[in-house]
């Protein structure tokens, strides 16, 4: 048979299933993880994690993603990070610390009425970019900010 046609049929079915669920108010976050994504959390680089969570291999830099974090982290074990994403249709925000042994920190799947804002505190092993990847309207966007982590003097 024509392979292309079979695939086309499959996606149509999937599409209508989602449409029905949304109409019935059954779906909350569009992206819900069935099980803890072990491979993504154990991946040694961002690209591998993204593949595991979103099956994506590319991100587009976006100025619509703001990462608030201190320029210098007082304490690498507790670094406050806030991601503010302004684009429409945000489904998920993933947070990474690029230079950590396993960069993936967390995945936040948001319901359609959730605002693209997430704050938490993360562990950083050393000076690194904090990277936020936002899935919105089917596109993967990315923003980054460098946070310096140093050894303290007397206070640390």
């Amino acid at each position, binding site marked *: 048979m024509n392979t292309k046609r079979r695939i086309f049929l499959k996606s149509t079915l999937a599409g209508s299933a989602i449409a029905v669920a949304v109409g019935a108010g059954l779906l909350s976050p569009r992206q819900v993880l069935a099980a803890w994504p072990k491979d993504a959390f154990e991946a040694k680089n961002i690209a591998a994690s993204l593949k595991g969570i979103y099956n994506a291999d590319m991100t587009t830099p976006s100025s619509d993603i703001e990462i608030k974090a201190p*320029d210098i982290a007082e304490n690498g074990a507790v670094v406050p990070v806030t991601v503010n994403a302004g684009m429409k249709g945000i489904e998920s925000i993933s947070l990474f610390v690029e230079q950590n042994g396993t960069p993936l920190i967390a995945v936040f799947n948001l319901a359609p009425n959730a605002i693209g804002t997430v704050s938490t505190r993360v562990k950083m092993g050393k000076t690194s970019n904090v990277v936020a990847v936002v899935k919105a309207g089917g596109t993967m966007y990315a923003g980054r900010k460098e946070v310096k982590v140093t050894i303290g*003097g007397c206070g640390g």
Partner: protein
Amino acid sequence: MKALLTTATALALLVGAPLAAQASPQQDLKEFREYYMKKFPGVPLNEFSNGVYAIDPVSRVTWEAIEEDFPPYEDDLKKGEKMFKTPFANGKTYGSCFPNGGIGISQNYPYFDAANNTVKTLEQEVNECRVKNGEKPLKANKGDIAAVTAYMVYTSRGNKVNVKVPNDPRALAWYERGKRHFYMKRGQLNLSCANCHKDSSGLYIRAEMLSPALGHTTHFPVFRQAWGDLGTLHRRYGGCNKQVRAKPFPSQSDEYRALEYFHTYMSNGIKVNGPGSRK
């Protein structure tokens, strides 16, 4: 070259110290305040109770984020309040040992006890209260003693520090002893409190900015991220002494009580701000 200059300045300070010892506490306070107000123009006197965060906007961001919604000392404060309000086995409470029931009085500590020729700190009197009422004294530095004094300090928040050095040569001797400790170099690193917290305040030691000594004592007891819990002023004195590789004195020893007397007097007029949270 820089290192030499620093040593020279420090030496000058040491030599200068005995002469300065003749000045009155009031004169010392005036000089102390003027030194920091001149060094950090635009910082109001009361802001110094926020320590390094009054002068370092970078670290202030993190501090505010951590303190903002759930202050790290919250649980200890609740525990301290419960302790303070729970009667001892004999039915009496902490309040019975203190003026005003122990509420809103921490700004008056430490004080010179003329009858016994000694300086009394709040923690000392908390434990004296316990012993007087048949209870065991609390261990120093952290845990319950930090919690209950945190509550007492919290009820004093907003009151201006008001340590008195009466016109009594014995009180003055305690004050001078504390002042000597503050300005005397010690330890393998050969540093005095003043070297870091006066001369070098606002400068960096590795990646940290040194806090000004003005306002230092106002936010104790303190939840330090480094400790992971709430601790007392003398705990920090011990830690600082160790960090310059000097042998620490025991908490609530004469030396630390004298230091606390001088150190707190230097923050007179600044509002009590404890308990606090720091890196």
